[in-house]
């Protein structure tokens, strides 16, 4: 095998593993975000007791305690369940929830030493359709869990949820079609590249990035709602419906099997956030600075990256410092020092970023470093967008009550589906007038 091909294979293998690890790493963070977010919305404090040697990481350590609890629990398989399918269901749910991320690009391809390094596991020719088809397989996990548990509540939960997922899959697919009509391609890399330009309407360039949210505002809203429904997230969490069905489809699951369902739910949301950010918010594209512009001007990427870091870390540092001062009288020792430690780390990053920027602007960075900075900047940009959508998931859950089942079906079939079709019609007419 020639070295170029070997490089491509290694690249694909590394990216595939990475794309499996990224949503898994997001899950504990997301759970922490959910707990702290719900605490903020409900005016509570949230998890703040668990700690390792006094380090509490602002409640993040609670996740370790949860993992230990779930792993240590007895792995109960009830007597009258269909054992094989009962065990299969959580694995199916987890596997399917991690797959769609394989086609999402994390940054623009990097040309280095004659090789092209791609930050995407698989640039499939069917791109977006792959995501749709994998999400459509996700229903089986829930159906199997509900049916094999041999429990009325579980079966009811899984029936509700599968009906809901099938109904909203239609609006999701149709809202995507409008987007594909605009971008004229289904390949994820092409879709993201197209979004790097400026928006043009009837020959006039507008001062807006060419993002899906501006091209397809109705499509974006429909897709967002459908994504909430597909991930079984409140206000669409009828699959669980604690007040009506005890816990819905995962009622009979305990220990690690339950934690797999739990993780799959959060991994689904992370993947949905990645997909929405990629399709509608320009993916890794930095607004008003396309990949070509970043590659042409070696200092642009450096300045943008350092400014973003200074802004983010500066804000975080101020927040940590204030928190430390507020809680100074409550704690002693490590607990007292922890916020100041984190504030210090953040400010150190700020100083380092400023120093790097100063050095780069005056002395100039060595060739090649700029090439590495661009993917870092673009990855940071994508992660910020994803974080926003993660927060949106938390925000909506703790703000809106659950739908009633008939409301849910009425909305899916009588509101979202006609709207999606109308959106298609309007998009087609507008595209024809553009030509």
């Amino acid at each position, binding site marked *: 095998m020639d070295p170029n091909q070997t490089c491509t294979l290694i690249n694909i293998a590394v990216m595939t593993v990475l794309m499996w690890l990224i949503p898994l790493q997001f899950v504990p963070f997301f759970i922490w975000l959910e707990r702290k977010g719900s605490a903020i919305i409900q005016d509570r404090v949230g998890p703040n007791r668990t700690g390792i040697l006094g380090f509490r990481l602002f409640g993040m350590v609670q996740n370790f305690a949860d993992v230990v609890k779930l792993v240590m629990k007895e792995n109960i398989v009830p007597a009258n369940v269909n054992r094989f399918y009962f065990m299969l269901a959580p694995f199916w749910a987890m596997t399917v929830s991690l797959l769609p991320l394989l086609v999402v690009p994390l940054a623009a391809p990097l040309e280095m030493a004659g090789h092209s390094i791609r930050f995407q596991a698989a640039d499939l*020719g069917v791109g977006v359709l792959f995501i749709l*088809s*994998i999400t*459509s397989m996700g*229903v089986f996990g829930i159906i199997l869990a509900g049916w094999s548990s041999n429990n009325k509540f579980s*079966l009811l939960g899984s029936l509700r949820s599968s*009906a809901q997922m099938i109904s909203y899959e239609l609006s999701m697919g149709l809202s995507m079609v409008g987007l594909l009509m605009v971008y004229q391609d289904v390949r994820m890399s092409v879709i993201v590249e197209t979004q790097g330009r400026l928006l043009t309407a009837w020959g006039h360039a507008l001062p807006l990035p060419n993002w899906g949210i501006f091209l397809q505002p109705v499509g974006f809203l429909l897709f967002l709602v459908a994504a909430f429904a597909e991930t079984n997230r409140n206000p669409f969490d009828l699959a669980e419906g604690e007040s009506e069905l005890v816990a819905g489809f995962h009622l009979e699951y305990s220990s690690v099997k339950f934690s797999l369902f739990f993780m799959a739910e959060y991994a689904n949301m992370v993947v949905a956030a990645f997909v929405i950010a990629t399709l509608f918010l320009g993916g890794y594209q930095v607004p008003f600075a396309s990949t070509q512009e970043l590659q042409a001007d070696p200092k642009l990427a450096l300045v943008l990256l350092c400014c973003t870091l200074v802004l983010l870390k500066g804000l975080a540092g101020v927040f940590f410092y204030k928190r430390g001062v507020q809680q100074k009288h409550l704690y002693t020792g490590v607990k007292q020092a922890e916020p100041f430690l984190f504030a210090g780390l953040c400010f150190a990053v700020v100083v380092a970023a400023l120093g790097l920027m100063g050095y780069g602007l005056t002395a100039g960075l060595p060739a090649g470093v700029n090439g590495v900075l661009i993917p870092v900047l673009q990855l940071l940009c994508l992660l910020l967008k994803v974080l926003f959508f993660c927060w949106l998931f938390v925000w909506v859950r703790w703000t809106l009550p659950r739908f009633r089942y008939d409301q849910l079906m009425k909305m899916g079939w009588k509101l979202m589906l006609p709207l999606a079709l109308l959106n298609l019609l309007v998009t087609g007419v507008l595209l024809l007038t553009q030509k």
Partner: protein
Amino acid sequence: MLEAVLFYILAAVLLGMTLLVITRTNPIASSLGLVVAFGALAALYALLSASLVAIIQILVYAGGIMVLMIFVIMLLNLHADDLRPMAARGLTVALSLLAVMAGVLGPVLLVVFPSGNWIMAPLPDGFGGIFAVGSKIFSDYLFPFEMLSLVLLTAIVGALVLSKRKL
């Protein structure tokens, strides 16, 4: 080489799962076997560079139609006693398999390869992709395509009439 290995693995999965479909008495087991068989079939399509057909296979058959089938089976709530008379014998299965092979696949193969020439011309660029299939459907095969949508519409209306006695 790699393609041949993949083909044999996928073909084995496909055949094994299809056997499960017709030999299991538990309907859920059969339909799940069918889901995996559809997946293997989709992978075979992808191996034949028909990527769009592969993805549609998963999206429509495995993801859509099979969910509805499992739905119906679960709601029927069949017990093991109801299913016992339906269990098929091994010989019947083998004979019906042979009959299908001879009766359906044989003529098809004879029509497709009349001269027995199994070596194909290389495929053009973008074959089986979304652009190639789409432009074929909406130019050369527009009439059959529209007829198909009409047939589907008829089926939907028929299902509605059957299920809703009082419209």
